[in-house]
C-alpha cells in the first residue's frame, strides 16, 4: 500500500463514499425541515413556556 498511487475504479468503495455523501445531503435537508417545524416550539421551551405567553 505504501507509495503514491492513482485511484482506480472500485464500485464497492464508490458506493461507500456515495452513501456518506447521500447521508450528508439527507441530513442537511432533513434537519433544515425539522428546524422549521420544531424551531419555534423549541425556542418557547428554551426561553420559558409561561413567559413566552406574556
Amino acid at each position, binding site marked *: 500500500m505504501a507509495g503514491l498511487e492513482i485511484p482506480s475504479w*472500485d464500485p464497492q468503495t464508490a458506493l461507500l463514499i456515495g*452513501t456518506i455523501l447521500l447521508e*450528508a445531503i439527507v*441530513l442537511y435537508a432533513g434537519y433544515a425541515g425539522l428546524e422549521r417545524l420544531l424551531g419555534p416550539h423549541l425556542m418557547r421551551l428554551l426561553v420559558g413556556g409561561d*413567559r413566552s405567553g406574556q
Partner: protein
Amino acid sequence: MGPEMLALFVGFGLVVGVLFGFFGMGGSFLVTPALLMLDYEPSVAVGSGMAFVFGTAVIATLKHHDLGQVDYKLGAIMITGTTIGIEAGRASVYYLESIGLAGSLISVAYVVLLGGVGAMVTRDALKGDGDGGVDHEATDKSLDEYEIPETAKKIQRTVRIPPMVTLRGDVSVSVWVITAVAFATGLLSGFLGVGGGFIRMPAMIYAIGVPVPVAVGTDLFEIVFSGGLGSYLYGQGGGVDLGIVAPLLFGSALGARVGSAATAVVDADGIKVYFGGMLLVGAVAVGVGEIGTYIGSPTLEMVGLVLVIGAAVVVAAAILYTSVVSLRTTYDRQATTAD
C-alpha cells in the same frame, strides 16, 4: 457494534458538530485521536476521520454556497495541490503502519499540533484582540471591506511567478503560491485524517490574502473534493468504517446547526479561551493515552480517552448554556421594554 458504542458515536458527533458550527473549525481533529484510543487500527482511525470530515464539509458547503461565500476558481486551483498532498500523507500512514510506527507518530503529531494551535488560540483569547478566530456568519460586511494582511501583500508583491490569477475580493496572486499552500495543508490532512481547515484557513487569509468569509466557504468546498478523494483512497484499503462515520455524521449535522445558531446569540471571543484550553487538554490527553499504550496501561489509555471527550463536552456544554442564558436575558429585556 453495540448500542452503547452507537450512542457514544452519535453523542460525540453532536459535541463535535456544536464546536464546528460555533467556531467554524476544530472538533473534527478530536475524532481520529479518540478512535486511536478506542484501539482502532491507525488507517481506520485516520480513514474514518477523513470520511467524517468529508460528510461534514458537504453539509457546511451547502450552507456557505447559499450565503455566496465560496470562491470556486480558488477552490478548483487548490484541489490539485491538496489532492497530491493528501495522497502523500496517506502513503506515509500505510508505510509507517507497515513498520509499526504509525500509531505513535500520528499521536506525537497530534500532541504537537493540538498543543501549538491550542497555545496560539489561548494566547489570542487572553490578549482579547478577538482576531484569532473565524466569524462563521460574517455576512454583514462587503468583501471589499476586508483588509488584506501585510504578509499576504508582501507575498503578492514578491512572488510574481506566472500564471497569476485574480480572486474574489480583487486579490491577484501566483497559482504557485496557492498550490504550495494547498500541498502543505493536504499533506497534513492526509497524514492526520483532518480537514486541515484550522491550518488552511489562516494560510488562505495570511498567505493568499483571501477575505475571511470566502476563506471559510472555499476551504469547505475544497474539502468536499479532497476529503472525498482521500476517503475513497482510504476506503479502497479498508480504512473507512461506515459503522463509525454514519452515527458520527448523524450527531454532528444536528450539532453544527445548533452551534451555528448559537453564534447569533453568544460572543465567540468570550468562549475562545475554553476552546484553546480544550485543544491543550486534547494534546495532554493524546500524550497520556500514548504513554498508556507504550507501557501497556489500559487505565492511562482510558484517562486519555475521557480527557479528550470530556474537554470537548465541557466546551460544547459551555456554548449551549451561555446561549440559553443569553436568549433568556434578551427575551426578558424585550418583554420588559414591551411592558
